[in-house]
């Protein structure tokens, strides 16, 4: 459904997206996982033609997007990161406008509007002005406006940022339902749990580059049967580098001023590791342990946690 080849974009000489390639199959939810500033939104903006790539090609349904944009855009639904709606008119009027923009009209549009208002639990306040809605309601309407025309490919740019857990669950359920109805979804997020629960396949992106991609199982295999131990406190670089020598298979992943990350096979207990730290003169201020997960994959690949 979507194919991106060697896509890159730079702003003021700084690469925001660095020659990335990936493919999203019809009907799947493809996750784009990465921290803020990783290049997720820039990639989405290039796919939906808001930004012109410096290089690379984008294919939607096998058609290269730059030449035949208007026709292809009807196949595309976009839900931007920030709520992009008209606050001074009602939810119904908003949906009517976005539907008409994609060529819908008459009873077909009216029926679809009712359907969506009901689906997103907004039917009782359909005629209220959007400015009187809560943050969660606006997010739901934002999503509804993106799928009013039943797009074949839906680009969701962090649709759950800044909302309460209940509203977030509502949106995630809706996304699953939209995918079940046959829409292909590209879902960007920096929430590990969302990617784990929602996506069939995903790509981990950081500093504009795709670090790895594939199914969750294949990605988690990168870290194998290892847990990640992040120690912060007072220590010397020499001590930190020497420590793995004391425990077989302990691997130093990253070393910063007051923080060091190790990878330790599951067969070793953490007690032995802490004992070794004390022996080596570490003054431990904080120790966090990550079991094998997407988060630990991110640590393995970047040396830092996703939320850092």
């Amino acid at each position, binding site marked *: 459904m979507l194919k991106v080849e060697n896509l890159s974009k730079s702003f003021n000489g700084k690469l925001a997206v660095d020659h990335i390639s990936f493919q999203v199959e019809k009907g799947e939810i493809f996750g784009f996982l990465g921290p803020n500033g990783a290049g997720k939104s820039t990639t989405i903006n290039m796919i939906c033609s*808001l930004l012109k790539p410096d290089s690379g090609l984008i294919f939607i349904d096998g058609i290269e997007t730059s030449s035949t944009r208007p*026709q292809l855009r*009807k196949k*595309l639904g976009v839900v931007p990161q920030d709520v*992009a*709606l008209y606050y001074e008119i009602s939810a119904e009027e908003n949906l009517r406008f976005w539907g008409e923009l994609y060529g819908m009209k008459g009873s077909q549009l009216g029926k679809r509007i009712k359907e969506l208002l009901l689906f997103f639990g907004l039917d009782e306040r359909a005629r209220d002005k959007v400015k009187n809605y809560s943050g969660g309601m606006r997010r739901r309407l934002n999503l509804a406006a993106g799928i009013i025309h039943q797009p074949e490919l839906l680009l969701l740019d962090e649709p759950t940022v800044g909302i309460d857990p209940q509203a977030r669950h509502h949106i995630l359920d809706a996304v699953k339902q939209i995918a079940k109805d046959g829409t292909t979804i590209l879902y960007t997020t920096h929430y590990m749990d969302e990617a784990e629960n929602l996506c069939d396949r995903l790509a981990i992106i950081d500093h504009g580059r795709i670090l790895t991609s594939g199914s969750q199982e294949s990605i988690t295999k990168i870290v194998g049967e290892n847990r990640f131990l992040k120690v912060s406190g007072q220590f010397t670089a020499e001590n930190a580098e020497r420590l793995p020598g004391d425990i077989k298979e302990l691997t130093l992943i990253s070393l910063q001023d007051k923080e060091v990350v190790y990878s330790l096979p599951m067969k070793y207990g953490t007690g032995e590791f802490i004992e070794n730290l004390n022996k080596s003169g570490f003054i431990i201020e904080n120790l966090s342990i990550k079991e094998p997960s997407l988060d630990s994959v991110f640590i393995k690949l970047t040396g830092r946690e996703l939320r850092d």
Partner: protein
Amino acid sequence: MIGTLLRKDLIRRFYNPSGFILLVSLPLIFTFLLGSIFRPSEKENILPKVNLLIADRDSSFVSRMLGGAFGQGDLKKMFETQNVDISTGTQMIEEGKSSALLIFPDGFQDSLLHEKQTNITLIKNPSQAFSPKIAEEVIKILCEGTDRIFRIGAKPLKSFRILYDGHQRPTNPQISSMAVEINALFAGMDNYIFPPLIELKKEALKKQQQESSATQNMLTYLLAGIVVMFLLFIIDTMARDLFTESENLTLQRILTGPVSVKQFIISKQLFLFIAGLLAYCLVWMAGIALFRIRFALYQFLLFFMFSVLVIASITGIIGFFYTLVKTRIQGSAIAPVIIIVFSALGGAMIPLNALPPFLKNIAVFSPVYWCVDGLQKILIEQFGLAQLMPHIIILVSLTLLLNIAAFFMFARRFRI
């Protein structure tokens, strides 16, 4: 597609019309206020009333009638009277609380009926310049008028005096004789009194019509300028919506759909024109009703055509201005200054005749001048199409040039 975008903007604007109505009502309020200040009939009321004290020591029919004349008809508009005794009146004059004190002496009516000379006294407030003078002039006229009445009516008054002095009931022949004399008196005065009175009424009516027409012309003259100035403000307010859409990311979202940047910009330019046209029509409809402006059909058609041109050129001016600013805040800070300068120079705020000569010479460089001057020439001087050609050519050029420039500059700015 453009229709959908345009409909959306109109719905957004008129979902809550209070702001729009307020904007539209402002030019009418301004015109009304300016008209109230400058209309000729009101000018007369700008002068304060003359405060006249009356000390009537005679308390007779004639003295009361003369004193009461200041509270009747036109004199009532000029005078404010108060009955006092002489000492209170003198004290009030000394304290500067009144303009003049008029004293009717004892036996005033008796003297008149017996054709004896009598005096009325006017004490003027020396600290006031005009009001005592006005009182003096009016009282002189009243004295002269009273004198004439008593001289012309000498014969019937003589009969009346006999009855007045006799202290007994008059007989029927005496009353009949006096009635005949009074009738003969009025019959003799017919030729002198009635024709001028009829003529006076005619003149008064004519004067009223002229005054009313002058007032209407002035309000129309003012309204033409003020409408153009407020049209600039109204379209300016609407034009900022382009930046609002960009800030709220709805513009970006629209452009991810099957809409081109050019379609979006055309829809915005059309929206500015239509919103401007609606505001303009509402103001003029209210203005025509309130200020009773009258048109001949040809004049109305010319006015309508020229108005469309005015709105289109203002859409171009504002649209082009916003291509030169970077943000909505920058635009909203600079636009009012430019609008006020253009309006002041173009005769929208102050009539051009009131400007110093060097400013009059540069007025033609303000686009507002061509709008306001054209409208005033149609409405006041009844200009025809041929006489308006310079205005039309300039406004058509401005409309085309500025709207096309704005279109391409915005398209370049939002180009992907």
